């Protein structure tokens, strides 16, 4: 039983000092200027040609995917989509700075991380068409990806819930003593949830090797950051929890890569959490259900379009001699075709057989679920034409 003095590190004053945010001023790390030239003062991270190309590839891929799937949603081929446009650097370069064994717990706008890890077009499509090939078994809306093999936790819609979960996951990694951390992505809106508070505080107190990666993209659906919080972004909160914090230009691949690399090093070496706030902008609508013209101006969007993270990365890679415009155009064209072809192919795949409806509620279906399935199948077989997606395959396997 040691003596714990909660005043031990508290200094003293004798005048009423009202501390305001002015005290804190958390600068944003930028390594590449908006035109792609490195800042002189910046020490660029070691990023080899292959990794740089992989990052660019993933960024371009998700941009293509976004375009195509928004189109597919407009055509009524899928019910819903949510684009990452504008935030490709934040979500891709951060994942690139991790190791494959690191767990990713994401919000929903992090297809960059998933693409970087190697999730295939087929996998994206299987999830979005809720078909029987999707290991998530078509139970959630499009974009709720998840893949055990890639250490990418299946996404859940309720915002912020993954934050304390990530602390717990990382605690388990620490207890196992492996060289692995957890990265937890979330938006600046989600950071208003009570779970954010719980997750950061617990990670700090319980020394969990977790990287909290906040995409501050200025909006939560229609709500601007200015109506979301009054402090200095999300970074300033890290200080309150005693969590080491880095603010970074989320549209700068180099800065994001360097910040995440540093964060991972700290998390592993010191077995503690690190918070990264990536300043970026949601260029897309919130989702295909949203129309941002109702709440923000074209000019604002244009200003941010000029900060396109992909263009910046291309410029830098061009300077390295790693980028060829013409070859790239072909690659992107091929991506477009692939996505479209895969879409056409996958949209014909069946939904899971009806037996799946009661599976995975528990490890094995209890009596009442078996009874409910039996009754349901009998019912479907009475009205097969009303349940066309499942009635054709009532006798599984």
């Amino acid at each position, binding site marked *: 039983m040691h003596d714990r003095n909660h005043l031990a590190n508290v200094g003293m004053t004798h005048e009423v000092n009202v501390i305001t945010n002015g005290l804190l001023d958390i600068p944003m790390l930028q390594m590449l200027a908006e035109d792609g030239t490195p800042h002189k003062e910046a020490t660029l991270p070691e990023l080899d040609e292959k990794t740089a190309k992989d990052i660019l590839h993933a960024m371009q891929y998700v941009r293509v995917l976004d375009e195509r799937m928004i189109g597919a949603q407009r055509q009524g081929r899928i019910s819903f989509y949510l684009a990452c446009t504008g935030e490709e650097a934040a979500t891709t370069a951060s994942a690139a700075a991790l190791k494959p064994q690191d767990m990713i717990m994401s919000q929903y706008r992090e297809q960059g991380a998933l693409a970087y890890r190697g999730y295939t077009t087929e996998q994206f499509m299987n999830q979005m068409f809720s078909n029987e090939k999707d290991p998530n*078994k078509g*139970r959630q*809306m499009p974009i709720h990806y998840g893949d055990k093999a890639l250490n990418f936790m299946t996404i859940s819609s309720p915002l912020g819930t993954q934050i304390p979960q990530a602390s717990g996951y990382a605690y388990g990694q620490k207890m196992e003593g492996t060289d692995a951390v957890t990265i937890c992505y979330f938006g600046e809106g989600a950071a208003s949830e009570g779970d954010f508070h719980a997750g950061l505080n617990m990670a700090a107190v319980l020394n969990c090797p977790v990287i909290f990666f906040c995409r501050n993209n200025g909006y939560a*659906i229609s*709500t601007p950051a200015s109506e979301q919080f009054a402090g200095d972004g999300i970074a300033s909160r890290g200080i309150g929890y005693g969590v080491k914090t880095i603010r970074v230009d989320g549209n700068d691949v180099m800065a994001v890569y360097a910040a995440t690399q540093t964060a991972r090093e700290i998390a592993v070496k010191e077995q503690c959490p690190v918070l990264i706030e990536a300043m970026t902008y949601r260029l897309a609508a919130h989702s295909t259900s949203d129309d941002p013209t109702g709440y923000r101006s074209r000019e604002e969007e244009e200003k941010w379009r000029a900060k396109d993270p992909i263009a910046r990365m291309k410029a830098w890679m061009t300077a390295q001699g790693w980028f060829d415009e013409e070859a790239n155009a072909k690659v992107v064209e091929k991506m477009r075709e692939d996505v479209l072809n895969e879409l056409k192919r996958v949209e014909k795949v069946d*939904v899971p057989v009806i037996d799946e*409806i009661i599976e995975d509620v528990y490890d094995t279906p209890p009596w009442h*679920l078996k009874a409910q399935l039996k009754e349901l199948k009998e019912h*479907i077989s009475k009205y097969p034409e009303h349940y066309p997606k499942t009635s054709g395959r009532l006798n599984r396997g």
Partner: protein
Amino acid sequence: MAKMNLLQAINNALITAMEENEKVMVFGEDVGHFGGVFRATSNLQEKFGKGRCFNTPLTEQGIIGFANGLAAQGSSPVAEIQFGDYIFPAFDQIVNETAKWRYRSGGQFSVGTLTIRTPYGGGIAGGHYHSQSPEAYFAHTPGMKIVIPRNPYQAKGLLLASIRDDNPVLFMEPKKLYRASVGEVPEDDYELPIGKAEVIKEGKDITLLAWGAQIEIIEKAAEMAEKDGVSAEIIDLRSILPWDADTVAESVMKTGRLLINHEAPLTGGFASEIAATIQERCFLYLEAPISRVCGLDTPYPLAHEKEYMPDHLKTYEAIKRTLQY
């Protein structure tokens, strides 16, 4: 009278309430300038100012906590939870605070002026987290009232009554009907009674009971059964808590049979309370077991939504089973 869809009726009710009483304030995620993701609060900020209609940060527990305090202070908050599926972070504020506020203070303080609005229910390809029907979770909570409209006329009249009722009301809106349900709505102020079920159609062979979007399901099933010569009485419960056991019992004493339909999973759903109460009240009148046609005991699925739903066909089959018992 004007033709309105359910959203417009709600918007109209909010305007009516805000015009009448400056203490009525409307807030939640995206409800301000944008008017809410479904647009139920459209134009309220323009009409009544940012002080009375505003966005909140993204925190349901905060929204209801804030609303509780605001109600205790004497204002009339109408807090929106963007989807019924996201009401659970506010569960403690509702169940431990809102519902018990008056009782624990001996009536010195209360949050009776609070109204919580939330869209609920499936049928919109929303999967797990945009489809749930959480009414039963709240129905086990003395101190709360729970109200669910089935069409625009009901929506306006019941929402106005809820806002003015001196008890906290959870007002659940069947989002599937937001634009789909259109009807004549008086432009004037009016209220419909909380705690009273409505007998929509009289019948003599079986009582069909539901609420919200499931009313049209049981109506459709009743039509099918009618062709077999079955005369069904159709009741809209409208208030889940307190619920109108008298009206239901009276009907069942006449028909001798009861079928309850809801979207939420069967086990622990509110149909269980109704069945438990009615089997006691009407024991000697029942000619068949009370039948529950409900969602399966699984999370709300996406690919199998159609199969999951307690639709008119399942209801029709259950009617037949009950009559043949």
